[in-house]
């Protein structure tokens, strides 16, 4: 899960969820909007976590974000049901004016070619450990309650009390403070609540990952000093 603060499912989480879904005949929709197209080192998060969805949604990396386009892939069973309904109702009554817009689709096709021709997955697998190990290097920092991440996405959750994992009151907006410190030092990172996150372009170089990590280290110290000075710790 990305926007929730980069929550990586524990081992066997989805295995168990999928068994329950199957038992109760519940469809499984997998949202690959963030994880799809290489972010985790596989082409899709489904491959990383062994997911067998009925429907997959994808966007963002589909066009490298250059133009707005998304796709929904549906299983044969779902297509059959739509077909059946069309025979009764006469139309599959869903769609958008710009569904499959040619220019967006052309950019998406080109992005897929680039991923393949430049071995983007190999690139992600080569550099992702630098980010993950680098972020885990901050685990001992007094503000860091937990380090999470996988592939080229990761986050540090800031806490008031490291031992008890007590969060800061949200109204202090410490996440925004550290995000602004990073920006001041030349890196755009995003705080989701009090989790400072990184998810750089997949083409990032090792030296650029090091630069991000240096900036995070500096911003963490400044944020700690700020929180101390304000009496928030």
């Amino acid at each position, binding site marked *: *899960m990305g*926007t*929730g*603060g980069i929550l990586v499912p*524990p081992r066997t*989480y989805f295995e*168990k*969820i999928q068994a*329950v879904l199957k*038992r*109760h005949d*519940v469809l499984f929709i997998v*949202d690959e*909007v963030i994880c799809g197209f290489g972010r985790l080192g596989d082409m899709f998060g489904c491959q990383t976590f062994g*997911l067998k*969805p009925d*429907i*997959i*949604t*994808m966007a*963002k*990396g589909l066009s*490298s*974000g*250059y133009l707005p386009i*998304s*796709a*929904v*892939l549906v*299983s*044969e069973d779902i*297509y059959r049901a*739509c077909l059946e*309904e069309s025979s009764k*109702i*006469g139309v*599959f*009554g*869903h*769609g958008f*004016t710009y*569904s*499959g*817009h*040619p220019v967006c*689709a*052309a*950019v998406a096709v080109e992005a897929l070619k*680039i*991923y393949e021709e430049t071995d983007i997955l190999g690139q992600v697998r080569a550099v992702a450990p630098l980010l993950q190990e680098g972020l885990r290097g901050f685990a001992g920092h007094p503000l860091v309650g937990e380090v999470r991440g996988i592939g080229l996405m990761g986050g540090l959750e800031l*806490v008031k009390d490291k031992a008890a994992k007590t969060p800061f009151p949200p109204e202090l907006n410490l996440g925004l403070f550290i995000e602004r410190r990073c920006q001041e030092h*030349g890196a*755009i990172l995003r705080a989701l609540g009090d989790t400072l996150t*990184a*998810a*750089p372009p997949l*083409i990032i170089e090792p030296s650029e990952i090091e*630069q*991000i990590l240096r*900036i995070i280290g500096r911003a963490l110290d400044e944020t700690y000093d700020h929180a101390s000075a304000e009496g928030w710790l």
Partner: protein
Amino acid sequence: MNELTEAAPFLPNSASARDRAFVLHPMTNLVQHAAEGPLIVTRGEGIHIVDEQGRRYIEGVSGLWSVTLGFHNERLAQAAYRQMLELPSYHMFRFKSHPTAIELAERLIALSPAPMSKAFFANSGSEANDTAIKLAWYYNNALGRRAKKKIIARRLSRRRHRQRQPHGARPQPPGFRPADRPGPAYGLSAPLALRGARRKRGGVRDAARRHSGETDPRRGTRDRRGLHR
């Protein structure tokens, strides 16, 4: 200068002032924005962006997780330009199609991590997810299971977030029966070690139990906060 501009008592002239005068920003604290203004990004270079003052930043979050290939990819620009000249716009309604969308669908089905039959296109991940939910309802309607409308998503997820946004009063398209309004949505605890499921409440086991509607002996019944939109 025309009459209109001469008549205006105040003309904001910096990009920041004009932004604050005219733009309503998504996902933004509007009070803070009105006071401080935006970071105005004017160019991209590799994985960097450059602001209006010429300051460079590493874009460490790919914009909104999206810009996988950096902010200056010549091939993507050329692909857009070629298509602009060839067929800049067309739709796919009522038996129309075009080669580029066909090629994209074919590639995505081939690339799919699970066996899939067809690709439907939309313009954003939000629309794709709204579509997926409609399709799940549509599928169950087709099978005569019209009451099967519940959506289970993890708390904190993008899906849950969308469920809380105003959906407006779009008319139901044909084929989506009137009952297909955003229905009950269950919030499944997210696997967040610091705050919940994994550590404090038994994690996966607990989540799976609530997912299946079974009771939790420690808490009595199904998640109390579960049923809300």
